[in-house]
């Protein structure tokens, strides 16, 4: 069985892999299916599919509001897994899900559901390395990648430990803060990515948080293997649905040519 994440990072044919983030069930279930489809058509290499959570500590206002909106609309985890299953036919899907949703019914049970839905990996933003062993074992057993996150504040020793256990790719959080569009990339980003890369080799390194424009995406592609665009895509989904996302992702993909 070939690893779909490794294949996506190897086969994009551009400066870096493009990974838009969308919120499952936002602005409604049907639109989020169409948004995933639009991402695939417009040139995304992988997608990150957010499972809405009531208390998303790592998220800024745009993604937080999208989660609240989806939950108010009655969206369930099962329904988001349905969106995952549809999208997984087109491209690798990383489920972005908070720890309580995973652990509420036990790690193995959630991993089994995610695997059934065709997910390629899990990203759990509030499950740092020290707490992740049980879930990583469950993911390994099911053939899913548990994607680790690192931040500018992560110490060299932690980077080593995280890099050594990394699966899929290393999600590098570009800045100290929550998700949300920023007008400029942090000046320290190249140095951070260099350190992460050294610790993670040969696992690919993707960068997320704050990236909103084609220009920023292109700058990140100079230093990293993957570019993650979250709040900007969610905003487009809310403002103009799948057509707006198709246009935005097309622009981002073009900037990575």
């Amino acid at each position, binding site marked *: 069985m070939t690893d779909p994440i490794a294949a996506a990072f190897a086969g994009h044919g551009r400066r870096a892999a493009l990974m838009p983030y969308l919120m499952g069930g936002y602005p409604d279930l049907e639109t989020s299916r169409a948004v995933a489809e639009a991402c695939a058509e417009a040139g995304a290499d992988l997608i990150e599919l957010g499972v809405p959570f009531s208390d998303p500590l790592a998220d800024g206002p745009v993604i937080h509001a999208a989660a609240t909106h989806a939950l108010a609309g009655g969206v369930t985890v099962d329904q988001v897994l349905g969106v995952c299953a549809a999208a997984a036919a087109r491209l690798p899907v990383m489920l972005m899900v908070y720890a309580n949703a995973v652990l509420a019914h036990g790690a193995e049970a959630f991993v089994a559901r995610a695997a059934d839905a065709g997910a390629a990996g899990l990203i759990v933003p509030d499950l740092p390395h020290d707490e992740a062993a049980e879930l990583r074992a469950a993911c390994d057993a099911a053939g899913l990648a548990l994607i680790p996150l690192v931040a*500018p504040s992560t110490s060299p020793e932690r980077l080593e430990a995280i890099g050594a256990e990394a699966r899929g790719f290393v999600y590098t959080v570009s800045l100290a803060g929550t998700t949300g569009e920023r007008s400029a990339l942090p000046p320290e980003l190249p140095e951070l990515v260099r350190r992460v890369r050294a610790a993670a080799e040969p696992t690919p390194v993707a960068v997320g948080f704050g990236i909103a424009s084609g220009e920023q995406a292109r700058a990140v592609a100079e230093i990293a293997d993957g570019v993650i665009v979250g709040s900007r895509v969610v905003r487009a989904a809310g403002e103009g649905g799948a057509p707006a996302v198709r246009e935005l992702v097309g622009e981002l993909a073009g900037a990575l040519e």
Partner: protein
Amino acid sequence: MSDAISPAGSLERRFGAYGGRYVPETLIPALDELERAWLEARADEGFGAELATLLRDFAGRPTPLYRAGRLSEEVGRTVYLKREDLLHTGAHKINNALGQALLAKRMGKDRVIAETGAGQHGVATATACALLGLECVIYMGSEDMRRQRPNVERMGLLGAEVAEVEAGARTLKEAVSEAIRDWVTNSAGTHYVIGSAVGPAPYPALVRDLQRTIGDEARAQILEREGRLPDRVIACVGGGSNAIGTFVAFEADEGVELVGVEAAGEGIESGRHSAPLSTGARGILHGAMSAVMQDSDGQIVEAHSISAGLDYPASGPEHAELRDSGRARYVAVGDDEAVASFRRLCRLEGLIPALEPSHAVAWLLGAGIEAAAGAERNGSTGTGLDLLTLSGRGDKDLAEVLGLD
């Protein structure tokens, strides 16, 4: 007076299966730094002396242990009240706020953030920051700001900025989330003073250490007065800081029963309650694995209680472990019984209690809903000896209670 802080040793990251640090990676170094700083400060006699002096001269420790004669007659057992209601700012929250603000200063952090529900912890933190010359931002849900206007004004007078939180139900849970998001962004120069024995490690242990002055004092006081330990030690449980601060001093005393009283709100069956220990599954909220109220998808559900200080859908991890081990038991009391007991204590003892400890008083008066089937009820013998932590006074609750008429 007993030592304000606990003896040297390690700081627990987990309590059995509970606790841990379920937070974004960005915060891990800040939590490591806080853990080291507290281990050092706690072992430093100079720090201990400075805190003890502030607790004595500024906050009003030690607090009296009062033999509540008429309440004892009514209950049919001897009841002592630990008078945290007499502290400056009106509740036990100042014990923790002073300790953490002093720690922030020691760590070289000149900005402090905190969350508040009813405003008690916000006022306590704003007070400590004014005293120590620290910048202070308090996150508060807009619904709580509306309900607790006088405390918003107090924080303003004390020089704190009150940051309004518009998310979700606009109450305590969202205020904690916003404070954590601020800390994710600003942890380098900011200390987050969490208000109860909740949150990621080392907070539950840190807050317990700062609140154990309640239990240490009370244990020595009751031994002096009665020549023996109490049969039961009772405290209300929101996040669980006044309860754990009381219980910890008695944990090794095997014959002493520990009883935590949660808020049953409109009734456990209604679903509109704040009793995660009495009902909750295991879950993760605000960085800790603990007893958490949630739905079948793992979404956190809103808590309900007439007392804003108990209106939180999780409890501290050490309580979850004490529940599972059987060392403490947890019961729940509804809004109506709490209000009736609030009124009863006013008339019986000339004490206007906060609504939070009114829940504990209500259980003592026989109003509790037992979590364990067949558990023994109150008021049986005339020789029983109980100690109850009266965690705060009721000034803040007058509008709420009188508004019910």
